[in-house]
């Protein structure tokens, strides 16, 4: 499962799901491993499907051929991929193996903060009074 080819597919899928063109390589590997430990079967389903898309308009093709046809389990994986990139948090499904805790690097790399143009909670790099102004 955790081959370089699958990792690259996971990164490409993550780009489509998150809307972010540039995703950190180290985090991609960590998140892929984290998800593969809990959703191996779902990844085995979705990654080949994703690889087989023609690639002319990936978003539309993904929606039509994968998202709209996905099983509840695959939908759960899709939700987790988005969630882990946006919030660095991972909601453990029941009866699955435990995963290592989130790292501070992952916490700081949450996509939600740059998307809403706010400093990462507890790790502001801005100066007094920035909050007076709209971003």
């Amino acid at each position, binding site marked *: 499962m955790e081959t370089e080819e699958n990792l690259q597919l996971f990164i490409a899928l993550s780009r*489509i*799901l*998150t*809307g972010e063109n540039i995703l950190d390589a180290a985090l991609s590997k960590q998140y892929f491993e984290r998800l593969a430990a809990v959703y191996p079967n779902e990844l085995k389903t979705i990654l080949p499907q994703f690889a087989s898309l023609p690639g002319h308009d990936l*978003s539309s093709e*993904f*929606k039509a051929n994968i*998202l*709209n046809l996905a099983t509840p389990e695959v939908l759960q994986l*899709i*939700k987790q991929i*988005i*969630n882990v990139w*946006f*919030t660095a*948090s991972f909601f453990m499904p029941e009866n699955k193996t435990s995963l290592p*805790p*989130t*790292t*501070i690097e992952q*916490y700081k790399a949450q996509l*939600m*903060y740059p*998307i*809403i*143009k*706010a*400093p990462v*909670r*507890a*790790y*502001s790099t*801005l*100066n*007094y*009074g*920035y*909050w*007076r*102004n*709209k*971003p």
Partner: protein
Amino acid sequence: MAIDTYDFVIIGSGVAGALAAYKLSLKNPKPTILIIEAGENLVSDDEVENKKLRAEFVDHFALAEHRTPLSPYHQLEGNKFVPSPDGTSKDDLNKYYQIKQSEGDSQFFKATYQRINGGSTWSWRGNCPRFVPKDFLLKSEYLSKNLNISSNAEDWAITYSDLEKHYCEAEKELGISGNHDEWNTHYHGAFRSQKFPMENIAQSYSDEQVKGRIGNYLVINGVKIKILSTPQARNSKPYSNDGKQLERKACEGNGNCIPICPTGAKYDATVHLKLAKQNSVDFLPNCVVTDLEVDGSGRINQVNYLNWKSDNPQKRLSVKAKNVIMATHAIETAKILLYSGLANSSGQLGQNLMDHLNNEATGLMLEPIYTFRGPQGTSSIPAFCDGDFRKEYAAFNITFGNDGWGRSESPQASLAKLVDNKIFGKELQDQFKNRIWRQIRFSYSTEMLPQTYNKVTLGDKLDPLGIPRPQIAFKLDDYSLKAFVYAQTVLKQILQELKATEIKPDFPKFPNLEFNTAGHPMGTCRMGNNPAKSVVDSFGKSHDHPNLYIVGSSVFTTGATANPTLTIAALTLRTIDSIQ
């Protein structure tokens, strides 16, 4: 300990204990002083080490599976021996408290606090409004005019005027940023004789948007809605409370005021603990006071404690004292005195436990107001902190939240809703920020009346050191519940005026309300002139023991709506001033 008998033994190193120690250490001749602290959070006098430690606490909080007020400190060794109440569920809190509850009653005391160096200032927001003059006269001004209200309330033994100069001093000590003109003019007659030591924390863009829409004209049931900047123990510029020590930085808007400010721009009581130690105050952490002893004349002469870091944590140790100052707030102070069998000729010890009941109201604005930028809150609506309505129901304070919908809907929950609708990619980003940026939240906190049935007693179960755990009985009365419902209707009107959608709560409910408590335990050792009805006199001195003083929120006669810390500090300064 090098000293056989201390002039003062202070129990607790939170804001009351640390400030009391520091102020006593400035007296001439300088007394010998010992602070005994139950916990230990490794804060030292080395600022470089403290900075690293604070960063570790912040990291622990960021990575916590369930973020609670104590998450930054879960790894501390002391938690095994001196647990603190933490969490929001009854099961969580029951790990320390024993919650005494009637069958079928869902109401329970939810306050958390911390037993570490600096006390609960390691998990406070830093809001520092004063009481208003009529808070000290609740019974005579309001309650006595309505025979249907049943309570154990008394007027305070002091007035706002008696405390005003101490409020000014407390604002300097803690370092309060505030707008003098606003709070001198629009706060129910709470005059100010001095300016705040720093100008107010800049109000957020979102708060300014609300001010622009309703700040100058909205009137609800005859009450003009005036939006003020919240006075806060958070620096709006680099600040040192005595002008000599290392300045603490200006706030950088980390959005993490509770539980821990990553930079130290928000005050915590280790500021005064450090100053006290520099002035030769002895400090004994990781020692849990069990009880006090008296001599034949009723004077406290010995403090007994257990040292959980020693080879034998069960070994009873003691220190002699000429005077004892209890500074372990409303739960622990009552517990220690009850266990000692002291200071209770009135029968009031442990009774009259209060907190502030709170919850939030939320809506979705039409335009972005850009949440999650800056401190967690910068503005308040104190219009309902006093008024004739207090003859019928409780006063309440309203504060703004800068952190989206808070407990009502986290960003993760907002995200999940969108993903459940199969939205992804750039559209997901756009819809996510569009929702987060428009979220507005107000919190409201209502006062509670002192009641004999809301109380701390000794439980029948023991803590890890073998000391009886505090047992809490807690029930809400109609006076508070009516205010809770009224606050919801007020906020609904404000949100409607702002043309917000998705307003919650949409239909205020009574009496089965969802509520939180603010973690402001008060009462249990109340102040009064009548020894038959109170535990301490107007200076915090025990009616029963001439060398026992109590500082902290336990001496509050009533709870008002103000966050208690500034009043705790002011009363502490008054107590120390009274000691010759």
